[in-house]
């Protein structure tokens, strides 16, 4: 096992590039976290994060209980889905989901019965700190927990660094760097104990020797809550490090750099450095699942912006339509102009408020025209290099733009397109108003698509070549058979040779007999059946002889 040395810096570093943005978090932090009402109808998508979609386990008309698994994960990088409340499944079908494409995805629609009756989940563990890491991971997986900070990577996978890697440092990401978003701060202040418990469980599961909570230095209230909580719990070994407030200091790679000075290798994982990074919300979700048996069926969502009457933080059931949450926050003001899921730098703009909240919905920003104005007309790049100054990945955004613009997908990868985290800093400072991030996204999806096409073409080529080979072989075999038959014909006795003919007939009869005998022998294999089995066979035979499609 490779021994790694990571240490937490005394003084956190400033990340490369980045922007100072007005934080705009105070609006939504005026009142404490509260529960959003459970809507009548919940739309629960089967795919809520990167990785494979889950497979529905319930049917239309089924009654479900809160916390019951309604879709299971089929894949390692996947997570099951639970019923957010008790009720009846009324539909399983395609509904609009929160995705930049505005396309529909398969969702389970549940009509709430209003009782919110819980199912027994069996997730809680008696003594979690004595439990085996694999057992903890299994429960985290069953609880459907995914990273609540960003892309929603299944947490159980990240809790498993693999047998070759030793995890030294667990980094808890509480640096909510994007403006407007305050759900982590609200959660820390209201559920400090859950956060600390979750951190402890993760530390135990990972076997990490050090734990650090990275938090932005403009969140003094959250820092205080954590300090108090840690002191109460006697957890003096967990360090809290306020990092300088810069967007995007809360990016995983950026936060690790700020705290340790280490750069996560491109295409690599923090685990390559002996570090694992989890979001605070994920920690709290783990505590709730493993200590109280609650799977991931709700999350904290910041509802904010000038377009909503009472900006606040709400605990929302997964599957709640966004319109209902906005209603719970006082409804729209007349300034509403855009609905964003996530913050103003990396959020996704929603085509409608009918889409549901999913596990990765950290914020609903109902922006006014002033907060999110329509895009300005773009002009040609003047190569001023301001984008280079702010790029946290130290890329050359204008070079990437140039090649994306020209659709030169090979060259754009020479400039490390896939190290771009799409933070939007470059587009934010561009004096030419070029939609840089969209160019990069265009290029990325285009390259992925080309890769898919290439794989498909390879498969087709392989299958075609195999087919040609097979046809060739068949042709050869046919020719051989024909040649053989011709030879046999030549050897056959001349017509009129009665004895020979008789012998031939006898031989044919013999062959028929032998065949029949072997068939009988085969039939004997299903002899001595119980009447039950025979009845079943008869049933199958009857079905077979009936409508050919009935079995479908």
């Amino acid at each position, binding site marked *: 096992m490779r021994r790694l040395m990571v240490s937490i810096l005394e003084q956190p570093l400033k990340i490369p590039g980045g922007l100072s943005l007005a934080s705009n978090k105070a609006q939504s932090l005026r009142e404490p976290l509260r529960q959003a009402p459970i809507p009548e109808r919940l739309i629960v998508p089967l*795919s809520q994060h990167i990785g494979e979609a889950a497979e529905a386990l319930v049917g239309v008309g089924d009654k479900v209980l809160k916390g019951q698994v309604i879709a299971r994960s089929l894949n390692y990088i996947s997570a099951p889905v639970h019923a957010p409340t008790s009720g009846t499944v009324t539909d399983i079908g395609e509904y*609009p*989901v929160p*995705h*930049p*494409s*505005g*396309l529909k*995805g398969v969702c389970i629609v549940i009509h709430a019965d209003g009782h919110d009756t819980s199912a027994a989940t069996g997730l809680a563990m008696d003594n979690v700190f004595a439990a085996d890491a694999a057992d903890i991971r299994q429960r985290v997986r069953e609880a459907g927990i995914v990273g609540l900070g960003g892309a929603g990577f299944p947490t159980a996978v990240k809790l498993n660094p693999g047998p070759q890697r030793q995890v030294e440092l667990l980094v808890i990401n509480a640096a909510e760097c994007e403006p407007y978003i305050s759900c982590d701060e609200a959660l820390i202040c209201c559920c400090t104990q859950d956060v600390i418990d979750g951190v402890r469980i993760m530390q135990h599961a990972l076997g990490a020797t050090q734990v650090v909570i990275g938090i932005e230095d403009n969140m003094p209230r959250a820092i205080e809550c954590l300090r108090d909580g840690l002191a109460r719990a006697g957890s003096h070994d967990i360090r809290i490090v306020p990092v300088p407030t810069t967007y995007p200091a809360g990016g995983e790679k950026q936060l690790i750099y700020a705290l340790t000075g280490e750069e996560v290798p491109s295409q690599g994982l923090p685990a390559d450095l002996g570090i694992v990074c989890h979001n605070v919300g994920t920690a709290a979700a783990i505590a709730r699942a493993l200590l109280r048996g609650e799977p991931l069926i709700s999350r904290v969502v910041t509802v904010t912006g000038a377009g909503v009457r009472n900006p606040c933080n709400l605990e929302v059931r997964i599957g709640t339509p966004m319109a209902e949450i906005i209603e719970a926050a006082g409804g729209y003001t007349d300034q509403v102009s855009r609905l964003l899921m996530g913050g103003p730098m990396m959020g996704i703009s929603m*085509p*409608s408020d*009918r889409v549901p909240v999913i596990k990765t919905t950290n914020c609903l920003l109902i922006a006014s025209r002033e907060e999110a104005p329509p*895009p300005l*007309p*773009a*002009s*040609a790049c003047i190569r001023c290099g301001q984008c280079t100054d702010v790029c946290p990945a130290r890329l050359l955004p204008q070079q990437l733009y140039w090649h994306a613009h020209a*659709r030169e997908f090979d060259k754009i990868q020479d400039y490390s397109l896939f190290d771009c985290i799409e933070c939007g800093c470059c587009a934010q400072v561009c004096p030419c108003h*070029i*939609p840089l991030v*969209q*160019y990069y*996204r*265009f290029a*990325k*999806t*285009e390259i992925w*698509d080309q890769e*898919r*096409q290439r794989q*498909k*073409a*390879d*498969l*087709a*080529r392989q*299958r*075609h*070549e*195999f*087919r*040609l080979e097979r046809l060739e072989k068949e042709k050869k075999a046919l020719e051989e058979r024909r040649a053989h038959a011709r030879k046999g014909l030549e050897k056959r006795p001349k017509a009129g040779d009665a004895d020979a003919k008789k012998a031939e007939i006898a031989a044919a009869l013999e062959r028929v007999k032998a065949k029949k005998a072997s068939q009988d022998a085969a039939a004997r294999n299903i002899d001595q059946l119980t009447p039950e089995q025979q009845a079943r066979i008869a049933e199958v035979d009857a079905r077979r002889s009936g409508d*050919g*499609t009935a079995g*479908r």
Partner: protein
Amino acid sequence: MLTATLALGILSALFGLLLGYSAIRFKVEGDPIVEQIDALLPQTQCGQCGFPGCRPYAEAIAAGEADINQCPPGGDSGIQALAELLGVDPKPLNAEHGVPQEKRVAVIDEQTCIGCTLCIQACPVDAIVGAAKQMHTVVAEECTGCDLCVPPCPVDCITMVPVKQDIVTWKWPYPESDTRPIVIARQA
């Protein structure tokens, strides 16, 4: 005069040697050209180019017997790639061979299928499964959308259905123009 001639002579000899050396030293070993062409073709095996499959077409291009603009599934980007590989000017798709169409996949109406196996024999990539007098079905992941199974079907039970775009295959659109970022798909 003599010095100048000599100097020039020596210089040219030196440069000649240098060039000759680098030609050997930095020689680029490439795939045979047919492989490279074949790698750029979409492998639909549809035969619209007039050759029985992508590889024969690649061989014909390499031999100079076919033009680079005969492959409708490859479309303009395919022609562009071929032109770049072969160092020739790209040209528009030859309409005689068809027009580019969106990606499609064959679907057999299983109620109508009589199990004649004709489509199975026509499929260039063995993407149709079934046996004589048994219902056939298309393995969608393996279907190249070549259309070759459609004509042989005696009961017209095969239709070519456009591949539906889903969230996994969705691509960000190219920003509409330099002067206006695109407004992306709106919900119906």
